[in-house]
């Protein structure tokens, strides 16, 4: 700059030239005045300054002002703007074997030059991408060495080939790629005024390329319009495949250095999981492609941003709702075209939860094809069950086909993973593949599980899944030390496995897996208390464990865990009040608390928590009425409130509340008739309705329980291997029988006792260790004996009684104080009472049966006493104990006669 003259501040050019602040004030005032003057009149203004020195100074400042632009206005740009001179290459200069022709681009990671081979006769043009200084060169090169073969082997007409790479004499890493003459896909589409259909066709070609790379285990990680060029012939070409992976390291501390090194890499197309720092997977590419399609269709980026700072972008991606593309276009005609399918397709690809995105780029692309050919698309309702339903409807066989495919995949992946794992110490490259495989396995394991879990008939597959997943996770766990990312991932995986085991009815297994997740997360929070993600995970673990402990009768310890979860979630929701998932988890915690508090007879506390949970879910449903999970939980919280009211003997309000719950549940099931969870919940809802009417309306109660039986039969028919469903059905059959006994409908009752017994026998056959079911079966058989006695079938009744007594004697001692055993004895007591009351019985026989009855009741009582000694007050069961005592008194009275 030619402004060496004049008044200059002390600096390196003039050693403390002694600027007089008074002079500076003059310069400043004149400069400010000059700025107010229209540009055209400035020369005139300057001429008016008599003092040459002053004029020169003002002139040079005006010149600098004109050049400064946004200089200093955006600190981030300042910090990221590389000292451009440092790595500027001039035409003719040679990088390794390549002669620079000219610079063709400059971005966050460095500059790109058009170049040609300097040592060959034929002039092949290439693009040389020079990575700028400031990165950890050794790391980049090492990763490049690992990846190079894989990347070089990616041969696809829509992928720009990676040809070479190395370091310059100055030690800067560079990559040599096929030179693509083309325009960014979004610019191309605008300039050629492509129709929506043409844009979709073009985009599907891009999908094809990404999908091909995924099959070769390469994830792009940085898909964005500027990485997708379209040649003049209209062929899209993807740039930089796998480069992001090389430049950014995968995990841990290594990644830190690269954040600063890659400042201008725009995060706007990055997936939420990438923003949050977890591993990028093929599903991250699905997201980024979704963002690209969003822009291609609407001509807008997915998020409305004020200042585009990385923080704002990160917040937008992880926290805001994406507007539909159709809402962003100006022309009504375009909006109409986008509304519906295309909105849904784009938003499905961009779902925050990876499990709810398209499962692959291929599926994404296929859905676009369906749209183009006028077929129904997968992306419609924002629910998994919708997908599952369609899947099921199309072909029931497909379910088992998918299950088979799934097992093959999992088996293959686990095998590959462990092979790769073994080779790890020998070969650094194997480690990299292992990581890739680990990620792939992770997404396959869990995405597939989610896709099949709501389908009936999936139980067997899911059990196998759990077994394989656990083997795999346990083998990884040994390697996780010091790797926070892997630990986090492991904890999440254990949690998911725990969730699956829970739905399979494996309670001890659930607790075991959840405890593994908890320990990992406790360690994560202990080593970095500011890690919010870890705190959130910890809260989730506390909740799930509290939940399980409570459900398995360990209420005290369960409450303790739940309270820890509650306080963590309250803290987290205060920090992030708009986070629906967090609020949902908070409400879940309250619902579990409500259940455990109710179980411990703190009904006021239970109602308070239940109502707070209900209020949260009502809000969440209002915000997102199509989210069936919130509706499902709203239903459950309503059910919980009803049940608690019933426990406080507020029967009228309990019945009213339960009816509200039923309405919510029936509506939900009607929309998702194949959802087994809804059906099972409805069973419980009807069951409760029966309980509530038990004392005031026996016929009404019977109807409710009968409906529960019907629903249970449907469940068992759809999924015969589901032990829980079968058990529920058996229990309700028994309850129907109980009501029929009270209504004196003996033969009907006999039928239901028998049915219940058969169901229990099936359960016992599959799970011989299930003691409760054994005792329930015995109870049902005692019920059969009692009904036989009532119907005058004395011999069979006696025989049944003997069998049951023999069984109970065998099973004694396994678990003292088992209330199931007390109930079986109680029912035997009733059977003998019925025998004693039979008109066929002689006075002697009658006396003998009454003695037997008394003995049975007394044994029942002593088992209950054992239980009380162990657990203290038995709550609701104390009434039952009193009933049994009354029966003993009756027997005594009869015997005195």
């Amino acid at each position, binding site marked *: 700059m030619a402004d*060496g003259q004049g008044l200059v501040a002390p*600096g390196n050019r003039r050693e403390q030239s002694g600027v007089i602040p008074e002079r500076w004030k003059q310069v400043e005032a004149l400069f400010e005045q000059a700025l107010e003057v229209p540009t055209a009149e400035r020369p005139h203004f300057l001429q008016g300054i008599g003092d040459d020195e002053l004029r020169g100074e003002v002139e040079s400042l005006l010149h600098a002002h004109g050049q400064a632009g946004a200089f*200093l206005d955006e600190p981030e740009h300042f910090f990221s703007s590389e000292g451009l001179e440092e790595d500027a290459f001039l035409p003719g200069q040679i990088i390794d074997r390549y002669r620079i022709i000219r610079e063709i681009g400059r971005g966050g990671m460095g500059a790109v030059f058009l170049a040609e081979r300097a040592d060959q006769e034929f002039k092949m043009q290439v693009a040389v991408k020079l990575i700028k200084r400031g990165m950890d060169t050794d790391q980049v090169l090492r990763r490049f060495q690992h990846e190079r073969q894989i990347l070089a082997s990616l041969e696809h007409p829509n992928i720009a080939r990676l040809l070479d790479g190395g370091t310059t004499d100055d030690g800067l890493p560079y990559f040599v790629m096929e030179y693509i003459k083309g325009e960014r896909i979004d610019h191309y589409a605008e300039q050629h005024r492509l129709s929506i259909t043409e844009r979709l066709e073009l985009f599907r070609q891009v999908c094809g390329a990404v999908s091909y790379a995924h099959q070769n285990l390469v994830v792009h990680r940085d898909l964005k319009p500027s990485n997708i060029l379209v040649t003049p012939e209209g062929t899209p070409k993807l740039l930089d495949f796998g480069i992001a992976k090389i430049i950014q390291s995968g995990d841990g501390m290594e990644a*830190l250095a690269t954040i600063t090194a890659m400042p201008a890499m725009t995060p706007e197309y990055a997936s939420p999981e990438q923003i949050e720092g977890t591993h990028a997977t093929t599903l991250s590419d699905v997201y980024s492609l979704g963002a690209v399609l969003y822009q291609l269709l609407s001509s807008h980026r997915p998020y409305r941003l004020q200042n585009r700072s*990385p923080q704002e972008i990160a917040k937008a991606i992880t926290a805001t709702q994406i507007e539909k593309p159709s809402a962003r276009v100006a022309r009504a005609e375009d909006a109409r075209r986008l509304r519906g399918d295309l909105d849904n397709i784009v938003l499905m690809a961009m779902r925050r939860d990876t499990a709810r995105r398209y499962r692959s780029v291929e599926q994404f692309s296929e859905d676009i094809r369906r749209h183009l050919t006028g077929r129904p698309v997968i992306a419609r309702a924002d629910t998994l069950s919708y997908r599952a339903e369609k899947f099921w409807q199309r072909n029931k066989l497909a379910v088992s086909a998918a299950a088979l495919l799934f097992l093959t995949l999992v088996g293959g992946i686990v095998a590959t993973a462990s092979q790769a794992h073994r080779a790890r110490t020998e070969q650094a490259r194997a480690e990299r593949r292992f990581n890739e495989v680990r990620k792939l396995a992770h997404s396959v394991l869990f995405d597939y599980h989610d896709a099949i879990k709501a389908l009936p008939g999936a139980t067997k597959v899911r059990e196998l899944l759990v077994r394989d997943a656990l083997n795999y996770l346990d083998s990884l766990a040994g390697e996780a030390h010091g790797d926070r990312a892997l630990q986090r991932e492991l904890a999440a995986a254990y949690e998911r496995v725990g969730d699956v085991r829970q739905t399979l009815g494996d309670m001890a297994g659930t607790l075991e897996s959840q405890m593994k997740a908890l320990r990992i997360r406790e360690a994560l929070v202990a080593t970095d208390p500011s890690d919010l993600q870890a705190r959130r995970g910890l809260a989730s673990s506390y909740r799930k464990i509290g939940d399980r402990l409570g459900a398995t009768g360990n209420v005290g310890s369960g409450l303790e865990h739940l309270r820890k979860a509650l306080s963590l979630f309250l803290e987290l929701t205060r920090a992030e009040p708009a986070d629906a998932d967090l609020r949902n988890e908070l409400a879940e915690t309250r619902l579990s608390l409500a259940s455990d508090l109710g179980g411990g007879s703190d009904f006021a506390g239970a109602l308070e928590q239940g109502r707070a949970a209900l209020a949260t879910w009502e809000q969440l449903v209002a915000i997102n009425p199509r989210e069936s999970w919130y509706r499902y939980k709203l239903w459950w919280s309503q059910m919980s409130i009803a049940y608690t009211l019933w426990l406080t003997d507020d029967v009228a309000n309990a019945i009213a509340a339960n009816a509200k719950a039923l309405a919510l549940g029936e509506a939900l099931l009607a929309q998702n008739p194949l959802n087994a969870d809804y059906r099972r919940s409805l069973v419980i809802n009807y069951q409760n309705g029966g309980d509530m009417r038990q004392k005031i309306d026996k016929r009404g109660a019977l109807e409710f329980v009968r409906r529960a039986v019907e629903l249970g039969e449907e469940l068992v028919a759809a999924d015969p291997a589901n032990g829980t469903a079968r058990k529920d059905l058996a229990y309700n059959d028994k309850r129907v029988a109980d009501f029929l006994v009270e209504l004196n409908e003996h033969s009907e009752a006999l039928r239901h006792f028998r049915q219940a017994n058969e169901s229990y026998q099936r359960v016992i056959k599959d799970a011989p260790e299930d003691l409760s079911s054994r005792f329930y079966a015995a109870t049902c058989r005692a019920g059969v004996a009692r009904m036989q006695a009532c119907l005058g079938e004395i011999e069979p009744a006696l025989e049944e009684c003997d069998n049951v007594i023999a069984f109970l004697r065998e099973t004694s001692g396994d678990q003292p104080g088992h209330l199931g055993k007390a109930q079986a004895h109680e029912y035997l007591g009733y059977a003998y009472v019925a025998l004693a009351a039979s008109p066929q019985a002689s006075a002697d026989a009658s006396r003998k049966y009454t003695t037997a009855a008394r003995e049975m009741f007394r044994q029942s009582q002593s088992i209950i006493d054992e239980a009380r000694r162990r657990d203290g007050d038995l709550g609701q069961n104390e009434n039952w104990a009193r009933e049994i005592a009354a029966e003993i008194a009756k027997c005594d009275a009869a015997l005195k006669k």
Partner: protein
Amino acid sequence: MATPAKGEVTQWLVAGSAGDADALESLLPLVYEELHRQAVGFFRRERAGHTLQPTALVSEVYLRLVNQHEVSWQNRAHFFGIAAQMMRRILVSHARGREAKKRGGAAEHISLPEELMAASERDPNLLALDDALTRLETLDPEKSRMVELRFFSGLSVEETAEVMKVSPRTIDRQWQTAKAWLHREIGASKAA
């Protein structure tokens, strides 16, 4: 060092804005430590594709250290004033340290995370800016301070005006002037 309690810093800030210069002075090490700590945490949390933004760090430190309900607008501005100085100091001393190291000298070593060093090292402009700012300070301390506030602490025009106790309009004008002057200085020193 343990994170200072929110209340502590808040008290100092309140006292400082009431004219207690010592109070402000005693904030310096706390803010420095926390900035330093946050810088590490920041890089740990934020992953790929992010620019180093000193201003974001400063905001985060503020949220951590200061109980916002008890601190008025002016106090907030004071805090950012202090933080801006600290941020500048942190970034620049590292850029210097690295430069010296490159030349083989035993640089004065301040323990800062590698990541932050990379950020400052990456940008030779930063050192040039720092030099220019120091020169501006001898010429026009107010403008130098204003640039510090806006650039290193990310204060808005209004906030800067609050700290400097002038009108936003004045800040606007001064910013234009300072920007032109600094741009010229940096350009000139490069050319030399």
